[in-house]
């Protein structure tokens, strides 16, 4: 389940990162996506909230919030790392794999 929370947070932060690719000065090294920013922001926020929900379903509320902050931080660093290594197609492949993985683990 914690892996599902991680995957969802990874997806959410990937979505938020992708929403910043339209303006070249925000993430200049990343290949831009054609998906509208507002859609990516909604997707990202929902995925992050889903990750929080998974954490709260594993732990009591105090521990769950702490765990979610840590999970989001770890997955954020993973997103940044992947973005720097593979700013093109591989990044999208990984994000899709994370969505599939998160969904599978969540189910």
């Amino acid at each position, binding site marked *: 389940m*914690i892996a599902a929370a991680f995957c969802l947070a990874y997806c959410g*932060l990937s979505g*938020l*990162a992708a929403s*910043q690719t339209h303006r070249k000065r*925000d*993430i*200049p*090294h*990343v290949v831009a996506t054609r998906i509208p920013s507002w859609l990516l922001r909604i997707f990202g926020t929902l995925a992050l909230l889903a990750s929080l929900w998974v954490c709260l379903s*594993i*732990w*009591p509320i*105090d*521990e769950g919030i*702490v*765990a979610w*902050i*840590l*999970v989001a*931080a*770890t997955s*954020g*660093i993973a*997103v*940044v*790392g992947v*973005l*720097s*290594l593979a700013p093109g197609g591989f990044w999208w492949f990984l994000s899709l794999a994370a969505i599939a993985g998160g969904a599978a683990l969540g189910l």
Partner: protein
Amino acid sequence: MVSNDQGAGVAAAASAEQSKPFNATASLTRLHTWFGLTAGWLLFVIFFTGSLTVFAPEITLWMQPEVSVPSHSELGATPRTLQTAEAFWADKGQSDARAMVRFPDTRNPDLRISFGGRGDIKTYAMDPLTGVQFEPRDTMGAQFFRALHYRLNIDRRSNEIGFWIVGLATAMMLAVLISGVIIHKRIFRELFVFRSRSAYPRAWLDGHTALGVFALPFLFVIGFTGLAYFYFLYMPAGVSALFDGDQAAFRQSMSQSAQGGGGGKREAGAMLPLSTFVEKAEAAMPRSEMASIRITPSKGGASVVEVRGSRDVGIVRDAGRVAFDGASGDIVQPLAAPLPAERLQSFVVGLHLAWFGGYAMHWLYFVLGLVGAGTMATGLVMFTVKRSARIDRASRADRLWWLAVGRINVAVIAGLALASISYLWANRVLAVGLEERAMFEIRIFFVVWVAALLHAYLRGAAMAWREQLGLAALMACSLPVLNWMTMRQWAGTYAADGDWQRFSVELVVVAMGVGAAAAAIKLGNISAAAESTFQRRNVEALT
């Protein structure tokens, strides 16, 4: 002698400096840089050792290969474990000494019974079912990393300077975090920016920012809770008011709950079986698993037996404890609801120590602790990398200072990695029967660390990065081989035996070795460029 022209120039410069409007960002940048540099060396050590401490029981288990992990899952104060403890107690129990029985749990598979007080403790480790005694080698294990983490391994009984230095560094870290957030104006827009292929100062700044910003909540919480943990040292007003500044009296009052509780005279007599106390404690604390029993002899009366619940029950450690009269079994100190202030303090401590959430939480703390260490390391390296770009405008004194910083960086970052892996090697290489063996392991750690500083001074930063990190990588990656040669154990045998704790320790060490190898290549190349510029300019300045 200063000429009039020079004096006028200096005065004009001072006047111009004074007439400049106050620039908060520039001031905070200076604060971030200099606090970050001076506290960064220490903070790297604190975060690195703190991360290792998260898995202290596992590391200690690896360092005591004589303790075998039972194939059964007999955890806690089960009837069979109690039977083993009582059989041992009947044989070796001492009525006139303090004693502690620690029941096996998921992280500590053996049953441990110890006698004695501070500085003179004799511990027996055994299989919780068969009672077969293990004879673990004399080692501090991961307790050494813990001591280094919060008091720089300075004996707390001799003085408290270690606490104070760590506390000061932590307070400086909080200032560095706040100033870092303020000076980084595009913090959210550049949240995902890490241009690793850019020129070096940019890549290092991006890396430093990305690590620091994502780990910011963790760093802030861990720093604040670390300070609040030792509130009685850093904010001694309460102790001064209530105990006249006597820290020893304060600590005694905090720890004497069992002896002091209950009042009334207790009759001397033979102690009841341990199972009696466990049964009564289970009735008093139905939500908690029994973790340990402490037996304290009292003057002229029967012993006081204190049963404690498991720690892993949530962020707030309200597992509780109940104290009994050893001879009659009467409760001398009932389970009391903690005061709000105690609960707050317990929350703070629980948040810092991560005694909740199980292994998933421990891994998150471990990874983010290393990220914290990485933030410090990238910041320290960036200090010299940035300055190598403006070496032409620097004075000779500045250049020498930057050279020194580069070498201290190597000694602190790579040297600590090398010393830590040497500590694990020493654990396997030193003879088991060596007198003061645990002390020798620690001495080897510090000797290697000092040698790393000398090596960095003599070889220069570029070569020292490569050689120290390269050696650390080699030693880490070959640790399973050494383990096999000395103990006939390695990750493969651990996996076959289902000993996943030791397996994980060895696997993580190897993974860290691979990381050190990659860092050796990267940092060696960067420092080579920076150092050659520094040295070229210094030669020019000297000639």
